[in-house]
């Protein structure tokens, strides 16, 4: 019964969304506050309906109601409860339902924030939100309905794809979707501003927290996905430049650019048109990501052509929203007023450079992702664009950005002084250079990239911390005063510093992968396998049976230079319902590095193929990402209203505090 009610609630949400689309838009045109006030209430009602619908599906999963096709295909009565719940979004239909649920959730938060958003802006924004909701609800109801029944009901389900039966993947999609869908709010605000023909610092002030929140979640989602791929796929890699990964990286790059350009807009009322365009592009890339992942076009261009219903529908959504918003942009953008002026060498200028590099890097990823598809459609020639392509294009574009980052952060608003800024970074340069040289000396003869990368990371971390130091401490300031001053700095400043330091940590983690070592061998019980200083000895192989899988767990003792560090278990699992084998890598964390052991097949004579890696500082890749998201979160708690004031060049460097 609840399943049917949930299904009906979804249809009801569609009807409500139509009202939410038409009435507030009309109200905003007619300047009628009563009509506009329909927007927030319907927005909440839509959320309630979709949430109920989602709950209904969850109930069907938890009670293993095998009269629902979706449950049969993705669940099993013997599956642990957590995977019954995460199975709800571990499949196409359910994940689309989660997608609209988050969309409606964001819509309802906009609806509730009635005092901080001008009424017309709110009404138009909710209408645009509703348009997106309508499109995706139709998509779900017509092509991907999770409530389709199976008559007669099945006796048992087919189980969730074992790769997805993992705590990492239980939380990865929600995080990623909050990020993706969060950008829909920036998009809706941008379209609303275009419809209204007005955009100013107030707009930027309202939009910034949304962008920041979405960005922080997307950062966490990507990091989570990368860590999952690292430990679950058993190849030891953490980023594969896979189209699915690129689909989430592109909105992240565009979103990062958007985040920085809204800062300029909020503080200096400049870069308006560009910010609006970025907001549109960021969400368009989110939609593109959804399209790439959900249409099956990645598996095969032809499978898309053979089973075109879903793919065509979502392609239609893509064209409608990207085309529609860009048309609106082309029509309205020339009417927007130009904003504040700034010199090329200034904080604003630096942020423009940031945007330029991020947008270009994003474009290269887009080309690398779509080119093979386009080529196949046009010529039928099949190619793969992999890591070498992205290493050659993406990295050279990101490196200058990272090198300029501490500069930009130190420059003053409106007009800056390049030499003065460089002066303030002398110490940072010096220490980073020393760190690089020390690394070279320490690892003499090792890979060149690692010390350079670590130097860059140190430079980024110190460069961003430098901002706190120069703004709270000068020669002669007592430490207690400096401390108080530092604590009094706006939270957004701290957020910026922490997020940028996070970038530095991630860069160090990535650079250190060049020092990684690995070993590959077939070992028997009691034999050892070596990677650099680390050794693993195969102690025993234990067979186990769990509710929905069986596994052979190989227990290894890990040694570093002959000293025992402990044991780890590496598993080869067979999920019986699907008959699908998976590899569970055994991982031991040593400091910030990890020893990683993955199993091959067990041979007839009892020996096992084993691959062992030692990856120094690898955890920094994800710790850095979490720190970035944390910085975003801290910045989000800053409720202050800011304005960027210029610094006069005459002020002595020590006292020059860029105002916020």
């Amino acid at each position, binding site marked *: 019964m609840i399943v049917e009610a949930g299904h009906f609630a979804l249809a009801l949400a569609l009807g409500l969304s139509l009202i939410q689309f038409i009435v507030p838009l009309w109200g905003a045109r007619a300047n009628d*506050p009563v009509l506009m006030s329909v927007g*927030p209430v319907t927005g909440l009602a839509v959320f309630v309906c979709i949430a109920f619908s989602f709950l209904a599906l969850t109930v069907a999963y938890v009670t293993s109601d095998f009269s629902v096709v979706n449950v049969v295909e993705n669940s099993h009565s013997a599956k642990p409860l957590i995977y019954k719940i995460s199975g709800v979004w571990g499949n196409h239909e359910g994940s689309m339902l989660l997608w609209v649920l988050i969309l409606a959730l964001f819509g309802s938060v906009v609806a509730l924030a009635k005092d901080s958003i001008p009424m017309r802006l709110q009404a138009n924004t909710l209408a645009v939100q509703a348009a997106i909701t309508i499109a995706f609800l139709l998509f779900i109801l017509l092509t991907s309905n999770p409530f389709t029944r199976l008559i007669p009901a099945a006796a048992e389900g087919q189980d969730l794809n074992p790769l997805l039966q993992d705590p990492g993947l239980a939380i990865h999609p929600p995080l990623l979707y909050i990020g993706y869908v969060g950008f829909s709010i920036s998009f809706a605000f941008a379209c609303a501003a275009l419809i209204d023909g007005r955009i100013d610092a107030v707009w930027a002030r309202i939009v910034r927290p949304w962008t920041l929140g979405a960005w922080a979640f997307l950062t966490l989602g990507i990091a989570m996905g990368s860590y999952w791929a690292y430990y679950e796929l058993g190849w030891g890699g953490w980023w594969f430049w896979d189209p699915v990964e690129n689909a989430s990286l592109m909105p992240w790059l565009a979103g990062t650019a958007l985040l920085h350009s809204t800062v300029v807009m909020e503080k200096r009322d400049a870069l308006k048109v560009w910010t609006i365009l970025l907001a549109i592009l960021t969400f368009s890339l989110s939609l593109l990501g959804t399209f790439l992942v959900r249409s099956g076009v990645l598996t095969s261009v032809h499978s898309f052509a053979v089973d075109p219903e879903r793919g065509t529908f979502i392609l239609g959504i893509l064209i409608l929203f990207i085309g529609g918003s860009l048309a609106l942009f082309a029509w309205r953008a020339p009417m927007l007023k130009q904003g504040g002026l700034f010199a090329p060498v200034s904080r604003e200028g630096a942020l423009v450079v940031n945007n330029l590099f991020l947008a270009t890097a994003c474009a290269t990823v887009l080309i690398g992702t779509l080119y093979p598809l386009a080529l196949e459609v046009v010529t039928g020639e099949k190619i793969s664009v992999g890591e070498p392509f992205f290493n050659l294009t993406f990295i050279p574009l990101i490196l200058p950005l990272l090198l300029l980052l501490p500069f930009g952060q130190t420059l003053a608003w409106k007009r800056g002084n390049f030499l003065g800024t460089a002066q303030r970074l002398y110490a940072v340069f010096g220490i980073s250079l020393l760190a690089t040289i020390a690394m070279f000396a320490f690892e003499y003869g090792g890979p060149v990239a690692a010390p350079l990368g670590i130097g860059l990371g140190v430079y980024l971390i110190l460069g961003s911390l430098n901002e706190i130091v120069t703004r709270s401490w000068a020669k002669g300031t007592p430490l207690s005063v400096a401390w108080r001053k530092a604590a009094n700095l706006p939270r957004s400043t701290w957020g910026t510093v922490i997020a940028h330091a996070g970038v530095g940590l991630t860069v160090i983690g990535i650079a250190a992968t060049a020092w990684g070592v690995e070993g590959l061998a077939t070992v028997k019980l009691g034999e050892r396998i070596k990677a650099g200083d680390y050794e693993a000895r195969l102690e025993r192989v234990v067979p186990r049976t769990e509710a929905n899988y069986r596994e052979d767990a190989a227990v290894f003792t890990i040694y570093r230079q002959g000293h025992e560090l402990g044991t780890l278990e590496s598993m080869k699992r067979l999920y019986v319902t699907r008959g699908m084998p998976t590899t569970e890598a055994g991982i031991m964390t040593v400091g910030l590095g990890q020893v990683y052991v993955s199993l091959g097949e067990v041979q007839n004579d009892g020996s096992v193929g084993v691959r062992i890696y030692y990856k120094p500082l690898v955890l920094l890749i994800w710790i850095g990402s979490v720190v970035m998201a944390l910085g975003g979160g801290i910045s989000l708690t800053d409720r202050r209203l800011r304005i960027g004031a210029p610094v006069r060049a005459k*002020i002595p460097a020590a006292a020059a505090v860029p105002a916020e």
Partner: protein
Amino acid sequence: MVIWIILLLMTAAAVMAVLWPLSRHRGFTAQQLDPDTQFYREQIAEIERDRERGALLDSEAEAAKAEAGRRLLRATGMTAADAFVALGEPALRRRRAASTLALSMIPIIALALYGAYGSPHFMARPPERQAQQQGGNFDLMTAVSQIEAHLAQNPQDGRGWEVVAPVYFRMGRVDDAVKAYETAVRYLGPSTERLSNYGETMVLAKDGLVSAEAQAVFEQAVKLDGQAFKARYYLAVAAEQDGKADKAKQAYAELLASSPEGAPWAGAVKQRLASLGVEQPVAGQGDAPQIGAEDIARMVSGLAERLESQGGSPEEWARLIRSYTVLGQRDKAVATAARARQVLAQDNAGLKTIDAMTRELKLTDAAP
């Protein structure tokens, strides 16, 4: 019926959610009506506070305040132009139109879409059955894992492997079933039945293909017991698959001749022979009346009619499904399986029988 009342109530609530804001005149705060100037006023106040705390230098504070002031002036000029209009005849008309829209659109869309895609007649299965079924599955799972644990300790217990093999097979773990039989044969030694089952599982694991290994197993079974019907049958199938039609015909014919009266496999064998183009002997061969293909078809259709009109036991349904398969009418078999499930929806054991049959016959496209 209950479901429709619930759906109706939900629709009413949704429509009310829209009508409610349309029906009231509420005050709108200054913040909502004129948020821009408010924003800049607060910004100026903020700058002042920062200056007092010493976070801003005087000169910077002045510059920032000047900028905010400029924006404030601009914003004040703009808001005057678009005052809200909530009163008067046109506003009333607009509200009525919006109410009508909500009253018509929401129920129509929701009911139309749900009507097209929903299954309102579909009530949830009684919870007891569900629980019972889950319990049953769970018991099976625990039993299997207990046996597995036991076998992990005593891998040389051939009996255990022999017991678990058909269970694996029924659970769909066909490859495991093959391994289990293989182990059982290794430890208990070959016997006709064991070898035949082993070979049969191998064949089913390969979707009906009699592989060379399976053939060797069957040959060993026949060596032990020349009568081994199952093994001989599969050997004949193997010959047929190898393209040795003559050998296959001969083997089938011998099998049929030596089979006891009314043997369950006789139908399948005859079907095979027919497909190889062998006419069934019309007369002779003892005085048992020979059943022709037409007679079989007539009997099958009689059974189908009876089951449809009067119902029948799960075994009878299963027999009908098998008969259709044997006659080569897989689509009918699939339809019958679906029908049987529907009829036997309340009969747990019956459903299992049907499931087992469809699995055995590889009617997987029917089995959800």
